[in-house]
Structure formats: structure tokens, C-alpha cells
């Protein structure tokens, strides 16, 4: 519904998609993206705890993100303290379910990047 109202506000009746993607789409709630260079095990565990649908799973040295389970609620972005951002991606259709599962390597070992979340 939010999308529909934003579309109306532009004053242009019909979207040009698939020839062009509307510029307002990147500002809407979407799946998270991660800064792997400053992602730590501690934060990854915290992100897993913050995710209400189990879309984020902390494995050894890797954060597994299941885009199929992500609802774009933004709790990981709130808990991520700058390490997690909104990706702005919404064209996520997949032919194989496995394509929706992304692995983010955990590169940092510092205890708390950017002072962490809360």
C-alpha cells in the first residue's frame, strides 16, 4: 500500500517498469546488506537474536542470510550499529530457492565495531 501511495505522489500514472526502475523504490524497507569488513562474531550472534523470522543465522565464520525468510522489518538494521544497512533491493525473484540464501563472511575480530548496537 505504501508503494502505491508513493507511486501516486509522483503524478505519473503508469510505471515504466520493466524498461526503467522508479527512483523512489530504493528508499523503501528492504532486505539488509552488510559491511563484512567490520562484521564480528559477536554482532552476528546479536543479529541472529534480533531477527524475528530466523532469516539471519550465525555459523562459524559466516552470517547466513535467507532472503526468502526476510520480511524487511529492519530490526537487524536497528541492532547493527552501522554495520547493517538497507539494501534497497526488491527485484529478488529466483528460479531456485537456494539462490535466495546468501553467505556473508565474518572478517573482523574486534570486539565491538562502531560501539555495536544496543
Amino acid at each position, binding site marked *: 500500500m505504501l508503494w502505491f501511495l508513493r507511486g501516486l505522489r509522483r503524478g505519473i500514472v503508469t510505471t515504466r517498469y520493466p524498461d526503467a526502475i522508479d527512483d523512489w523504490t530504493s528508499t*523503501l524497507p528492504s532486505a539488509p546488506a552488510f559491511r563484512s569488513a567490520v562484521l564480528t562474531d559477536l554482532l552476528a550472534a546479536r543479529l541472529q537474536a534480533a531477527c524475528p523470522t530466523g532469516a539471519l543465522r550465525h555459523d562459524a565464520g559466516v552470517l547466513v542470510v535467507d532472503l526468502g525468510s526476510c520480511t524487511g522489518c529492519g530490526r537487524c538494521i536497528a541492532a547493527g550499529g552501522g554495520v547493517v544497512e538497507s539494501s534497497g533491493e526488491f527485484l529478488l525473484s529466483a528460479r531456485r530457492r537456494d539462490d535466495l540464501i*546468501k553467505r556473508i563472511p565474518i572478517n573482523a575480530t574486534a570486539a565491538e565495531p562502531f560501539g555495536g548496537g544496543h
Partner: protein
Amino acid sequence: MIGEQQLDVTAAELRERALSLFGRSLHIRTVDTGSCAVCESEIRLLQAPHYDLHRLGFFFTPAPRHADLLLITGPCVRAFDNALFEVVNATPDPKAVIAVGACALGGIYPEDEFVHGALDRVVGVDVYIPGCPPSPLALLQGLLVAVGRLEERVSELSLDLDRGGP
């Protein structure tokens, strides 16, 4: 004896021929297997002037026998099994099945005595559209991917901002 590679090639050719049959007139039947109706709300918006899916040659039909493509939402409640199988079996081949939303993709409900929890545990799925709910543009992309008019891009997508992120 047909080798596995030959089988893959034949399957790909068959799929291409099936997709070309859909042309620019494809009829969609939506099936709700217990969703909260927000996916349906977004699907309905596809008909609004802003998204206007008719310009792309997609139309909705209430009859599964007239449908080429099924948009299935919800976590597949077991009580709905008979109706779901009837709809899937009544849809003539070649058909495409799209799982819509995080419920149908297995993200929200675990498998238990009430729900299957994911559509692909019950019927074969051709395209998965994630989102809670998927936006109308995401649904449009899923439809175009399903009929082969767009390539999917999520397999190449990186969510790592430090390694060529989105």
C-alpha cells in the same frame, strides 16, 4: 539410454517451447493457502493504473482451467490441501507455479500439524518471489521471469557492501 546432460537439454528446449506458447496473453489464477491477505492486497494492486499489468499481456482469471500461471500465497495450511491439489491439477499444462511471499517460501511458519510451512514441500515451484509482502514491482518481475521475458538477478546479487554490494 539418455544421458543426464541430454535430458537437461531436452528439458530446457521443452520449457522454452512452453514459454513461447504463453506469448503476450497469459492468464493468472491466484490461490490463497492461508495468507494474511497482504500478499493478495499487493497482487490486486497490479491491476491499478500505476502498475497496469495488462499492458504486459497478463490477465487474471477466476477459473483454474483457464489459467496458465498460478500465484500461490500463504504457508499451505493442511486443511486447504484438497482445494490446492484440485486447483493445481485443474490448471492445464504447460503451467507455471509461483510461490509468493515469505510464508510460501518457508520463512514464517515452521512445518507442523497445521501447516506444511512452505509451498515447495507440496507442489513444484518454478519461481520464488520473496518479500513480506512482495511489492507489486517485485511481483511483476517474478511474472516476467516466470515466462522468460526477464532474467532473474538474485543469483548474482551480493549483500556484502565491502565486496561489490547491491
